[in-house]
């Protein structure tokens, strides 16, 4: 059912139709000791386990009000002018960097989160560059951007060149309508960093895309998986979760990450500045990191968990799915997006030129 509306919501559209819960947000700010038994959570759509909130309330007696957003920009815009009352948010890597720089995140008190030991000890999770020492939050789920393709029409793509530098599949290609991602993966194909701060490199990526444009059918606003499923295109650049969700409907669809590497994104659980219930928020962070809770989340939403203890107990069909847990060498070649600061307008200009060309 979410083919129609749900697909407007990016990458989290696993389970059809989670009800949209409008919440009334509490503005009161009491001392920590006498904190009321309430928590306001702001998360992506369909991005939590089925029992996560209930088990939290059962355990702590804290009532959770749950609200949804569709992308990092929406989250940012909502908190930019001051926190309207949220206690827990789920920003992605590059957004955390920006929010830290703008003093929008509260440091988390590690002493109150004993379940931190469950986090995957690998550096991208335990000590990421965008959030050194996990000072401002803890990792949640992670994933990749890759190529969704129709097996009967296209052999497994091994390079971004199939999408970005070839007329072999003219008119059967869709790319994400995401400036940083498309520009970044073009940079990656050319052998540069996705976060390049060189105008010459960015212009080279721009020229590549302009040259490829006649072969591209659409820049899909987060509905590339639907284009693939309906046979509109045979190759799409998409988030892994979106392709996995349509693989379940159509055996002929598969997901591959090219050899040049890709974007690895990580979403995190953070406490925004001005959170009315920071004590409860810490309890919630600890709850999410609990092995059983994380396991239930990972088996429900099919994204890769950054919780090592939960990952160890995942069913084999999830754990061995390269679309969810890509091979080590793919990860080694990949990057996460960082905020390019002053360079954002350069990317934006190049992207506009691609679209107007």
């Amino acid at each position, binding site marked *: 059912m979410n083919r*129609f*509306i749900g697909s*407007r919501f990016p990458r989290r559209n696993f389970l059809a139709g989670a009800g949209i819960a409008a919440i009334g947000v509490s503005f009161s700010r009491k001392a920590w000791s006498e904190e009321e038994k309430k928590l306001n959570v702001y998360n992506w759509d369909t991005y939590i386990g089925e029992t996560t909130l209930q088990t939290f309330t059962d355990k702590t007696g804290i009532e959770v009000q749950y609200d949804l957003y569709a*992308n990092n*920009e929406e989250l*940012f*815009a909502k908190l930019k002018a001051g926190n309207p009352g949220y206690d827990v948010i789920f920003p992605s890597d590059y957004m955390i960097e*920006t929010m830290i*720089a*703008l003093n929008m995140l509260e440091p988390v008190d590690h002493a109150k989160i004993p379940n931190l030991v469950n986090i995957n000890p690998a550096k991208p999770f335990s000590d990421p560059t965008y959030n050194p020492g996990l000072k401002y939050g803890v990792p949640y789920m992670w994933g990749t951007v890759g190529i969704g393709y129709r097996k009967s029409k296209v052999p497994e793509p091994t390079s971004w060149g199939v999408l970005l530098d070839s007329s072999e599949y003219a*008119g059967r290609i869709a790319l994400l*309508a*995401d*400036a*940083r991602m498309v520009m970044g993966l073009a940079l990656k194909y050319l052998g540069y960093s996705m976060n390049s701060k060189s105008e010459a490199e960015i212009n080279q990526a721009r020229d590549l895309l302009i040259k490829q*444009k006649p072969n*591209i*059918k*659409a*820049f899909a*606003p987060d509905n590339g998986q639907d284009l693939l499923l*309906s*046979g*509109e295109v045979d190759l799409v650049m998409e988030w892994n979760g979106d392709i996995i969700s349509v693989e379940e409907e159509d055996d002929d669809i598969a997901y591959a990450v090219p050899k040049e590497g890709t974007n690895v994104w990580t979403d995190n659980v953070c406490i925004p500045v001005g959170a009315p219930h920071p004590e409860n928020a810490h309890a919630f962070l600890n709850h999410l990191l609990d092995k059983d809770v994380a396991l239930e989340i990972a088996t429900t939403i099919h994204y890769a968990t950054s919780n090592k203890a939960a990952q160890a107990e995942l069913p084999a069909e999830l754990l061995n799915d390269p679309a969810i847990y890509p091979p080590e060498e793919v990860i080694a070649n990949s990057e996460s997006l960082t*905020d390019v*600061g*002053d360079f*954002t*307008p350069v*990317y*934006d*200009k190049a*992207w*506009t*030129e691609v*679209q*107007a060309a």
Partner: protein
Amino acid sequence: MEDWRKNKLVFWILYLPPTAWLVLFFTIPLAIVWVYSFGERGPLGQTEIAISFANYIRSMEWTNLYIILKSIWIATVTTAICLLIGFPLAMGIAFASARYRNVLLLLVILPFWTNLLVRTYAWIAILRTNGHVNWFLEWVHGLLAGVFGLLGMPDVLGTFEPLQLLYNQKAVIIGLVYVNLPFVVLPLYATLEKLDKSFLEASLDLGAGQWRTLFSVTAPLAWPGIVTAAMLCFILSLGTYLTPDLLGGPDSVMIGNLIAQQFGPSRDWPFGSALSFLLMYVTFILLWIRAFAARGEKGKLH
């Protein structure tokens, strides 16, 4: 009767709420956007208040100007098609017998009861490669191929190639015409319905044919309605964002999408504000031309 304006209490009670509403929710937000448009983007995407024309200069760069001009062109084509379809439709409704008029009018308004997003997705289902249009064409093709087969020419039509109807400029215009048609039909209907039918009868009685009556009598009398309908359609099409986003191809970016990009991922609110104001200036100029034309007409009548 006493003029209600002279009763101070009544006047203020009636006057204050709408004024407060307009100031709070229209003038102030607009003023903020206007101030932003002279600001600068901080390195982290903050909006820094300044007095700089850089955003306006940037919006005049060829790439941005091209998108603005293309948007104007698409809106113009949409308006022309809407008028071509809408005028006969409005005439049909206005001249229909009273029994059917309300039903026909309802049919024009009915699509508004469904969300625009859903209606646009419906167009995707109609136009896509495996959509309803291509399904129908393939069916006709199969039928014809069968007939030719019986006639002993089995391969004369070749295999069916689905038409590429979606993700291009044509799809955007189809979508825009569909969305804006009611906004053209309703003002045209309002004008045509009020039109004194005896003028048309006089024209026909005095020997003018149907076409001559249409162009020399009906159209000039309905002119204010035509202008209003055209303006409404043009302004709505010019600022559109959803239709090119969902139905358009890689070439279909319009100014609305450019603005959305600035307020969203690029986090360049000052530039987005400048673009929004440019869009508004175009609208203001059109309204001014409209007002000017209206004054001219009045002058003619007196």
